[in-house]
């Protein structure tokens, strides 16, 4: 049988692309080599949220007294936490399988390789079986970057050094944990293991944490976690791993920190090896990312790519939309991918969320903007629920067009309210129009309305 579309990779881009394409009447074949749902569902976004929620409940019990609730003898049972996490993952993966089945998507849980382009179409092999399709959508995702640092590989093989995959299955809380890389994954894991009782040390090469987030918010988050006992070593370069410690340099001096476990989370790279892309001439950049245009097309006609594999945004929700853009263009509805209003969230406690420009990027782009920074205490609900909270909300306005170009927040519920800011940016509504929107009261999202009226 010849398929209208063959999708390689069953993560967010792959499974959603398959559903959308099948819903439009295409015959779809989906290959997944590990687990349907991809990194996001199995060893990334979702399982980490299950862990972090357990930590949050545990934190509540420890800090409940200031809210007038006395809890004694609370403890965190890591084995139960992991068991529950696995249940959550299983439920969601089953859901993905069900959705694909409902849409009549053929799923082959094997490693796929592109063989050639024949007159019949693209030929893809898996376990010596051959499949043909008119089009390809490549969603092979990404993998952790493992730099060639002495001791890293050995440590990884011995189970001393972990990636996001292994750390989410730890059934025993390590006494000491060193996290190399203070980005989203590193900070979320730092947050969890700090709550769970580990002595956590973060080693970051840059002089701020949180990657591209707003500088002021990064600083607030760092101070918040320093208060909770996490040690941050910024501007440090890891030079080697011993069997029980991490060695790093700062300003020419060498430091060594003992660790029971080490998490390496310095970034991710597109997974494009062994896919057979060279057999049909798909172009990649020097990082190995497949080069796509704004419509999701690669340089080869009828070959599309979506998700982490294109190396652009590397977020599950970006992947969803990229896959939809590809399917729309494949089925004749012109669509373009926009990256200007993609929200990003760090699910620490407090949460950090942002969308659009930060002051740094807006300056870099020479935009004519002004920004407003408000304390989250302007929100009644925030004050009611966050004893001692010192979150902020920062909103950037383009002076020329009077539209919102960026929003950054630190404070709980930030993850759930950031989409509203994304809508403001994506639709390019003017501040004048946005002022007419009604927000529910009392909610934390009212902080956005407050910020609009500060312009």
């Amino acid at each position, binding site marked *: 049988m010849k398929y209208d579309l063959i999708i390689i990779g069953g993560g967010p881009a792959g499974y959603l692309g398959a559903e959308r394409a099948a819903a439009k009447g295409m015959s779809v074949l989906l290959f997944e080599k590990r687990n349907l749902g991809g990194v996001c569902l199995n060893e990334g976004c979702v399982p980490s949220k299950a862990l972090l929620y357990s930590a949050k409940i545990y934190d509540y019990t420890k800090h409940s007294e200031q809210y007038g609730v006395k809890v004694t003898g609370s403890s965190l049972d890591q084995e139960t936490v992991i068991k529950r996490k696995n249940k959550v993952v299983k439920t969601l993966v089953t859901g993905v399988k069900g959705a694909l089945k409902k849409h009549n998507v053929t799923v082959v849980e094997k490693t796929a390789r592109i063989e050639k382009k024949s007159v019949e179409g693209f030929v893809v092999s898996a376990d010596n079986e051959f499949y043909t399709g008119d089009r390809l959508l490549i969603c092979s995702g990404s993998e952790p970057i493992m730099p060639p640092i002495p001791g890293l590989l050995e440590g990884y093989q011995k189970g001393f050094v972990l990636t996001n995959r292994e750390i989410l299955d730890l059934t025993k809380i390590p006494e000491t944990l060193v996290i190399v890389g203070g980005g989203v994954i590193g900070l979320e894991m730092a947050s969890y293991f700090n709550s769970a009782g580990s002595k956590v040390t973060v080693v970051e090469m840059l002089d701020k944490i949180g990657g591209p987030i707003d500088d002021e918010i990064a600083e607030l988050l760092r101070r918040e976690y320093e208060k909770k006992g996490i040690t941050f070593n910024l501007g440090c370069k890891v030079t080697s791993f011993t069997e029980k410690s991490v060695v790093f340099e700062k300003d020419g001096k060498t430091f060594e920190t003992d660790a029971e476990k080490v998490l390496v989370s310095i970034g991710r790279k597109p997974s494009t090896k062994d896919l057979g892309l060279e057999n049909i001439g798909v172009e990649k950049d020097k990082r190995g990312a497949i080069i796509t*245009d704004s419509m999701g*097309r*690669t*340089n*080869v*006609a009828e070959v599309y790519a979506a998700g982490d594999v294109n190396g652009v945004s590397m977020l599950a929700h970006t992947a969803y939309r990229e896959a939809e853009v590809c399917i729309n263009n494949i089925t004749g509805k012109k669509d373009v991918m926009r990256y200007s209003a993609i929200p990003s969230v760090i699910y620490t406690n407090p949460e950090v969320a942002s969308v659009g420009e930060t002051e740094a990027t807006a300056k870099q782009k020479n935009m004519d903007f002004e920004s407003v920074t408000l304390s989250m205490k302007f929100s009644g609900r925030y004050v009611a629920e966050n004893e001692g909270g010192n979150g902020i909300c920062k909103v950037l306005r383009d002076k020329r067009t009077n539209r919102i170009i960026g929003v950054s927040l630190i404070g709980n519920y930030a993850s759930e309210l950031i989409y509203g800011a994304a809508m403001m940016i994506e*639709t*390019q*509504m003017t501040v004048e129009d946005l002022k007419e929107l009604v927000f529910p009261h009392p909610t934390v999202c009212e902080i956005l309305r407050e910020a609009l009226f500060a312009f």
Partner: protein
Amino acid sequence: MLESNSVQFFVPKTNGGADMATAVIMPRQGNTVESCVVSKWHKKKGDKVNIGDILFTYETDKATFDEEAKTEGILLETYFEEGDDVPCLLNMCVIGEPGEDISSFAPDGAKSVNEETEKPKEDIKEEIKAQTDTLSAQTYGSDGLKISPRAKALAEKTNVDVSYANATGPNGRVIERDIQVLAKEGLKVTPAAKASYDQTASYNPTGIGGRVTEDDVKRGSIIETVAPVETKAVAVTEYTEEKLSNIRKLIAKTMHASISEMAQLTMNASFDATSIINFRTMVKANSERLGLANITINDIVIYAVAKTLLAHKDLNAHFNGESIKRFNAVNMGVAIDTPRGLMVPTVFNSDKKSLNDISAEVKDLAGRCKSGNISPDLLTGGTFTITNLGNLGIESFTPVINPPQTAILGVCGLVTRVKDENGQVKPYQAMGLSLTIDHRVVDGAPAARFLKDLCANLENFEILLAK
């Protein structure tokens, strides 16, 4: 009877001491015509105009007309631009002497096309408000926007901001359909991009729901794409592209409707044309002496058809899908090839007219069609149509019925054939006839009977004349 349609109306309005200036109005071409589109101005403001000069060309959906000057002077003012749909009888322009006060000639609410006003926006807005209830011929919107009167009226009715209409009319003019699109779909531009959005430019929208974003406006019409390597460049062939005239659009619409809605059947026959050829030769030789028109073979066929049709009324009929209307007189549509496209003027009551009358009338109608000044009223009302491709050597074809008529006759060229006459092979001139009928209402046999009668009448033309 035709004169009244081409007469130019002068509506001189007296205005104090200055009463020399003369207004030229948009003529009413036929009783059913409410407005005409200005196709071209041949003179511009300030030009010297002599009697007989063509001032402007305008068109209805059926024909194009030239408006000649009936007075001389300077073209002092024009009130509409090319592409405007102007209600009939409104003042189009004023001819007079320099310095004359012509303010009273402006159609209600109209502004001079050439007069750029520098009034503050607020003033203009108020002015527009004040004119809302009048039939406004305003050609400028609030921001110097070019807009047709009908578009403006619709914009006011539907409460849309005309400055965001995507102008598709000539010279970047907003026309009625632009307002319809805007009212129905809304403006496809994000609020932030509105300020810099130029409704006459074409952007490559990348925003949500296909909206034009601020970046799109900045970028112009370029979109970043990676050209697929396997796509081969298609050889570009040179071509010219031309927007269809109203006449062409109407032909396209009518012909397509005809083929798609009817069950058309064409049958071919031929007859011995010796009788009509001899008759025509005789008339030609004596036309001057007898005071006859230059009667052509086509006139003879028209005459014969007119005399034959009333015995076959299913073919002299209109069919609307529900009922058939059989006519007791033959209003013969005659297809005329003109530089503007096919036109079909009507010879009314052709069954009651003499061959000479028919010949003269067809010549007159053809001349009007070719010069483009025929009344639209003469282009309707046909009950049957004749189309002649014989002089181009066509031997048979499938004419397309002009709805709601039920038949059309194609007249083909003369060919030499032979026939057996008492054992002798004898050459003769044969003429082909191609009859298309609407098989929904006319069956093959009755149509064939009509063709047979027609051939018999043409083969014995002198007897038909005597009847």
